[in-house]
């Protein structure tokens, strides 16, 4: 009978067991392979952070050691550059997020002269080759007689982070129903309360993703920073500089620690989200 056919296909048409298993798990396997491709380099970094190299280069496995983890600042200037990079990243994130959010609201909400040109120009830092931007910025600072250092780096970072924040926030604001704010005003919320209680919370995911992107971009930027740093040394510049003379294991320690912190943050976020959904 037709009904029975569908529940138990004839043995002749049944593919080999192995093939069937493969077909059922193909998506999982592809996913795992991709994940491996993404994670493998990080795993290598992590493994070599426990290495005790002979000589200055940490390129071949010698033996297990916790020396580097016990003394991450053991290399001259490493932790100084790391602190500087973190400081710049925090300020750049803050500056770019505040400015970018305001620009995004202006672009999404208001009609003003040159609005469409601003809309296009804001993408320029994303589209332009970094070297070109770095060189032109350096020329600009040089011609204006501005001392290279912390401030030039910060200005440059805020500049290129801006476009990412604007893009992320604008998408969120554009998709927001304007009636939500009207409903808030109708329900006795003053303009300030409306912004704090309704507009901002709804735009928050866009703002957060823009801020996270900014932090990551600013923290590991090398090209633009290198052109505009003068004698200041950020963490990526330190890594680059030391790589020519030898690679201290501490670099792997810092790298692994950052990776693990990021993973922890993501996992915590997922868990919190899952708990909120369940309740």
């Amino acid at each position, binding site marked *: 009978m037709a009904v029975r056919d569908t529940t138990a296909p004839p043995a002749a048409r049944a593919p080999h067991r192995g093939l069937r298993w493969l077909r059922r798990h193909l998506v999982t396997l592809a996913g795992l392979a991709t994940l491996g491709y993404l994670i493998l380099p990080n795993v290598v970094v992590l493994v070599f952070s426990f290495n005790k190299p002979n000589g200055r280069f940490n390129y071949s496995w010698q033996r297990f050691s916790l020396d580097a983890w016990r003394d991450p600042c053991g290399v001259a200037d490493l932790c100084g550059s790391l602190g500087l990079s973190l400081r710049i990243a925090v300020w750049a994130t803050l500056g770019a997020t505040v400015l970018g959010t305001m620009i995004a609201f202006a672009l999404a909400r208001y009609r003003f002269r040159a609005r469409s040109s601003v809309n296009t120009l804001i993408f320029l830092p994303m589209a332009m080759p970094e070297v070109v931007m770095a060189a032109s910025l350096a020329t600009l600072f040089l011609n204006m007689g501005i001392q290279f250092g912390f401030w030039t780096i910060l200005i440059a970072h805020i500049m290129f982070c801006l476009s990412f924040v604007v893009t992320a926030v604008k998408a969120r604001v554009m998709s927001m*129903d304007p*009636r939500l704010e*009207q*409903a808030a*005003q*109708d*329900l006795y919320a003053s303009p300030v309360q409306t912004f704090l209680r*309704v507009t901002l919370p709804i735009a928050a995911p866009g703002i957060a993703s823009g801020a996270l992107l900014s932090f990551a971009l600013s923290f590991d930027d090398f090209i633009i920073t290198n052109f505009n740093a003068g004698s200041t040394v950020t963490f990526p510049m330190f890594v680059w500089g030391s790589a020519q003379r030898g690679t201290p294991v501490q670099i792997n320690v810092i790298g692994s620690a950052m990776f693990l912190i990021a993973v922890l943050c993501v996992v915590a976020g997922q868990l919190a989200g899952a708990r909120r959904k369940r309740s």
Partner: protein
Amino acid sequence: MTRTAPPHRSGGDVRLEGISKTYGSFTAVHPLDLTVPAGSFFALLGASGCGKTTTLRMIAGLEDPTTGTVALSGQDVTALPPYKRQVNTVFQNYALFPHLDIHENVAFGLRRRGIKSVKKPVEEMLDLVQLGPMARRRPQQLSGGQQQRVAVARALINKPEVLLLDEPLGALDLKLRRQMQLELKRIQTEVGITFVHVTHDQEEAMTMADTVAVMNGGRVEQLGAPADLYENPASTFVANFLGTSNLIEAEVVTADGEELLLKAGDAALRLPARRCSAPARPGGKVLAGVRPEKVTLAHADDAGSLPGGRNLLPARIKDAGFIGVSTQYVVTVPGLGELAVYEQNIERDGRLIPGADVVLHWSPAHTFGLDAAQDIGAGADLDEEAA
């Protein structure tokens, strides 16, 4: 006010004076005066773009009137922003806050006014709209009908003087819409707040409202109780937009006394003078109107046995549609065109089939007269579009 207070608190009245709204060269609302009595259920009815929503938004304060004033309970609020008006709105598509759960959505207005103990009133309000167990859900986890009730609860909990409803049932399917109409009517009677309801659905306006204002092209065409509007339309727009009307072009023969005598084609029609909203002079033109269900069909063979004193029109059945409670006929009257006739299915005459010669007859008292200078088809297609 001397009016006896209902058991619960009473709403306030709304008084619009010379209120209008223009956007550039487009006039959305022409200067209009409107008074909504306290505690009433008032409907603004019209097709999309007629200015009804703009009028509502001017009452809420979400739109600034170009001219005129808005007064709530006798106080001029024209210059007040929306958050300072004792008015709440149920928005089209509800506009629930997606980042807050149902409880917090309903509590929003109370919290903004600095009320600390919101738990009890919110729970009571959610019980009133039968959503108690949903308090911790997010709006997007609720069905359309449930979201609609949250929107009503969120507005009502603030005990506004006036509740504004902007097409609140537009997104619901027909069955749910009927159910919610009764529900809203029940809530309104229970809380006694003034409701101003905007809709394009004439049936909805007529079933729910005490008073209906029919709007067209930024103006109020007519205002009155639903039955009054239906029986005595003052314009062709109202006649066609509210239900269906047969409008017949006729010439006034005599215009003295209680009844006008009209000539339509070869037939003579009579029309009570007080039911004619147009100036009538002998030799002038008027539109004689009659609702399809007021007309009776008789087979031409029985024409001799009809009672006297009725308006008669000879016709031929063009089409007959059986819809259960009634049969809807389209008949052709020589020289006057097509008319609609709805007959109750009580005793069906087997001879009344397409092609049959018939006589239409109705009581002259059911005839109304309109100014012939108007567009005879105004509002007719709009109604179909809205339905």
